[in-house]
């Protein structure tokens, strides 16, 4: 307890982070070669696997297909051993279907779905280990998986949470902070134009503090985005040597790839 107090006095959080400090982020693209795209993301102790299948023909009847854009289908699930207390995840429960809906909402904002008319894009997310900010990690991992699948995105949608601990807004909330009962704000951001694509808050917060908390979460998104960008860049660099051979050597041959102007 004494150590805890000390941390608090020094402006540190329970896990030793500063208020605006993110947890360590580790990523890996292309975990499952059989899928069109896949990614693994660690945000501190929250670990998520995301897989993308598609764009492919719409499953379950043509009635579901959209003639103008892609149908994005998300399924979120959480392994039974992911949290400290064992809990079998309800695939069809209210919470998971809400999470699915919200993932679709956030991804829809980024995916240039008009390029994939009549198609379906499946995004499956599995939480292997959970330590707060589950939705954020899921969304970040899904984005990476979509990039790995070569699906066109307007921007890299990133998500970050923020809460208030001891009257200070803190970013990238872990499980202990999440369950402390104060308001938790989750923001999904398209960082290029600072547009909010997804937002949710639970818990009680005075309206005057919203701006502060929102700024904090947005800043977190921006930082995560920079890290993700860096990681994608590294991945590209190590895996792009084949381009030197597959890219057209003479202009004549490349002219066949017509522009995508509608």
């Amino acid at each position, binding site marked *: 307890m004494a150590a805890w107090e000390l941390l608090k006095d020094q402006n540190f959080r329970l896990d030793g982070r500063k208020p605006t400090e993110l947890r360590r982020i580790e990523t*890996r693209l292309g975990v*499952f070669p059989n899928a069109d795209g896949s990614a693994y993301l660690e945000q501190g102790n929250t670990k998520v*696997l995301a897989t993308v299948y598609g764009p492919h023909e719409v499953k379950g009847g043509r009635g579901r297909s959209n003639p103008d854009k892609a149908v994005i289908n998300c399924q979120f699930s959480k*392994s039974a*051993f992911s949290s400290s207390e064992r809990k079998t995840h309800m695939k069809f429960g209210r919470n998971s279907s809400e999470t699915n809906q919200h993932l679709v909402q956030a991804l829809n904002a980024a995916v240039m779905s008009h390029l994939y008319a009549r198609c379906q894009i499946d995004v499956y997310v599995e939480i292997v280990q959970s330590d707060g900010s589950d939705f954020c990690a899921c969304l970040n991992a899904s984005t990476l998986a979509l990039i790995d699948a070569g699906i066109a995105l307007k921007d890299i949608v990133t998500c970050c949470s923020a809460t208030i601990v001891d009257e200070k807004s803190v970013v990238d909330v872990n499980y202990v902070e999440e369950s402390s009962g104060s308001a938790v704000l989750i923001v999904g951001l398209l960082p290029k134009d600072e547009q909010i694509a997804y937002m949710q808050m639970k818990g009680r917060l005075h309206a005057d503090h919203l701006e502060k908390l929102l700024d904090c979460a947005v800043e977190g998104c921006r930082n995560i985005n920079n890290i993700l960008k860096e990681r994608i860049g590294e991945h590209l660099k190590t895996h792009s040597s084949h381009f030197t051979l597959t890219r057209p050597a003479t202009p004549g041959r490349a002219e066949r790839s017509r522009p995508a102007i509608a």
Partner: protein
Amino acid sequence: MDVILSKSEKIFLTHGIEEGIREDGRAPDDYRTIDLELSVVPNANGSSRIKLGNSDVLAGVKCEIGEPDPGRPNEGKIIFNVDCSANAGTEWEGRGGDDLEIEISEFLSKAYSNKSCLDLQILGLIPGEQCWHLYIDVLILRNGGNILDAVSLAVKSALYDTEIPKVLIKMSEKGQSEVELTDNPSDYIIMSTENCPIFVSICKLGKGHVVDATAKESACTMAKIVSAVRKDGMITASQKKCSGSLQESSVLEMYEHCRKVGMELNKTLISKLSEAKNAPIVGFLA
């Protein structure tokens, strides 16, 4: 994963197996490379990840205190739960994997129901009142054929990795026994997993049979025998799958084959497990 093959592809594959040359050059009783890693899930008491060729399985063991079965007051319980992750493919989305999940978890409990496999007495705490429940959750992340063998390897490894906290049994003022967890996290008990069975699936294609079938080979399999084999060669459970019928002689032959392979597989795994216990954790990042 469902693989559709054309008639001539099937013929090519089957002929190859009859001649002893598989599609990837393996001999009929060769396994693909098995990757083993322990303690991948820190939130579990024990965990393992097994990659068998293109199949990828994660198993986690969690211990909880609960009530014992009335019929077995001195024993703990083991509960299997298999989850087919949609990550493995679109066909497992929603309820798609349900049937397979039930099939595998049922077969696991059948194989482990033999008393000699795992000492459940060690899990008993207060007779008739409290005992350890071991929840063994298996998550199938990728299905590249021969998923059953991979699951059993993962379960055995995860059990090997399991550290059950030591408890003190105290008498309360009312004269009732109470269970108290020790504060020391390094104080734990380990179960003997030597005798845990491993599944060996043998697929019959044409006149030949193979172990560790790939997804394509599974698609042309006529009959399949799965046995849970202990390290001493005892078979604790077995089942025959797929639509084809088998003659008595070939059944016996396949069982014998199972036993042989199973013993070898057990031996190799057990020798590697102690090494794996002290290996650094890489997880999904490698």
